[in-house]
């Protein structure tokens, strides 16, 4: 890596916007990143990403067929060491961006990613995610309700009317993609935490669909993060969803003695 390349990569405001977008949320695909630069073609965004990658500021990893982009703050640290701490100059706007990038949790930010393949159509899967009669059969007995427009509230409610999860719709593209914030209300510690985010993606693959759930935007390994990751969390919900869609019957489980499952928790 040449520092020349890094400086050159950082000289462009569009590329700095892309770095900011990755600082905001690491691990994005091209299709998500091009939303950060609405005035630019996808080809233009690809070109900028290639320059950032060549400079070592962005690293990529394949996730299935998607190429995910991650911020790499190391070259910026080198610049900071060489050109900022030594001269203690006032920070330029560009350098202020860099400092934020350095302080970002970037790759360390925890997330859960689940993938499950279900024999169903995208439409039927979408219905299973958005119809309260169906969520009740696999989602801890809760009914989902929402107007499904960005900004609308989304709630998961027990039959007695208790709201267990509340959030807001961020994106809803029927049969393809649902993004909403997630805030669990039935636990004091989790209720006090900032809402996290769930992204449901449906990829049709012949007679089967891949359902990918990414739960991220946690402030570290919070109580919510740990709770949804345990054996009664997403693994259970997604297994139940698959069973309901493929067999028509809900999946019932009974908790074993605590020590038997402790190893898996």
């Amino acid at each position: 890596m040449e520092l020349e390349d890094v400086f050159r990569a950082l000289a462009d405001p569009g590329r700095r916007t892309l770095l900011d977008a990755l600082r905001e949320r690491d691990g994005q695909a091209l299709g998500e990143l091009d939303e950060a630069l609405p005035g630019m073609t996808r080809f233009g965004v690809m070109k900028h990403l290639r320059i950032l990658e060549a400079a070592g500021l962005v690293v990529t990893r394949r996730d299935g067929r998607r190429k995910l982009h991650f911020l790499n703050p190391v070259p910026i640290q080198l610049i900071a060491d060489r050109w900022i701490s030594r001269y203690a100059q006032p920070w330029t706007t560009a350098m202020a961006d860099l400092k934020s990038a350095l302080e970002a949790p970037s790759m360390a930010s925890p997330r859960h990613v689940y993938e499950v393949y279900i024999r169903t159509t995208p439409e039927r899967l979408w219905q299973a995610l958005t119809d309260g009669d169906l969520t009740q059969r696999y989602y801890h007995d809760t009914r989902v309700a929402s107007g499904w427009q960005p900004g609308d509230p989304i709630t998961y409610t027990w039959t007695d009317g208790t709201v267990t999860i509340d959030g807001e719709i961020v994106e809803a593209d029927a049969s393809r993609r649902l993004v909403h914030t997630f805030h669990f209300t039935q636990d004091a510690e989790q209720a006090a935490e900032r809402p996290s985010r769930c992204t449901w993606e449906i990829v049709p693959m012949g007679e089967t669909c891949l359902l990918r759930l990414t739960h991220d935007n946690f402030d570290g390994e919070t109580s919510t993060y740990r709770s949804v990751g345990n054996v009664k969390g997403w693994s259970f919900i997604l297994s139940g969803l698959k069973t309901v869609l493929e067999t028509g019957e809900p999946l019932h489980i009974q908790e074993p003695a605590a020590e038997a499952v402790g190893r898996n928790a």
Partner: protein
Amino acid sequence: MTAPQHVFQIYVRATPERLWQAITDPAMTQVYYFNSRIDSDLAVGSPITYKQPDGSVDIEGEVLEADPPRRLVHSFSSRWAANDDPPTTVTWEITPMGEACLLSVSHSGFPGENTTYQSVKDGWPMILSGLKTLVETGEQLKIGEPEAAEATV
């Protein structure tokens, strides 16, 4: 930094014995494990291989622990593509939970995010989804090619 590993958990409506059979019976693995047939006597220290029906070897390893119908641990060296990655460890654990079982698969021992780590990352969810479909419905889960609409993302 902790060594990378994969942990997958899925609930399957089945008895532990049925699930154990699904994991260890070559006629069943062929349905959901990328067409591969398991071959092992499951005695500790014995070889364990996964082979295509034409005999070509996908995975080689050794049985490290076998406690039917609860726990199977074996080493894992991928042979489906050339690599110099060291052997890793796969642990299958079955926990009965009423009419269903929790099946937990952990794949560990990677020295880093090497070729094997990357390539099994997408594979395990397919295998476990297919295993669940087979055991719960008696049918094969056929996973096709992704539709073109998303391929450019």
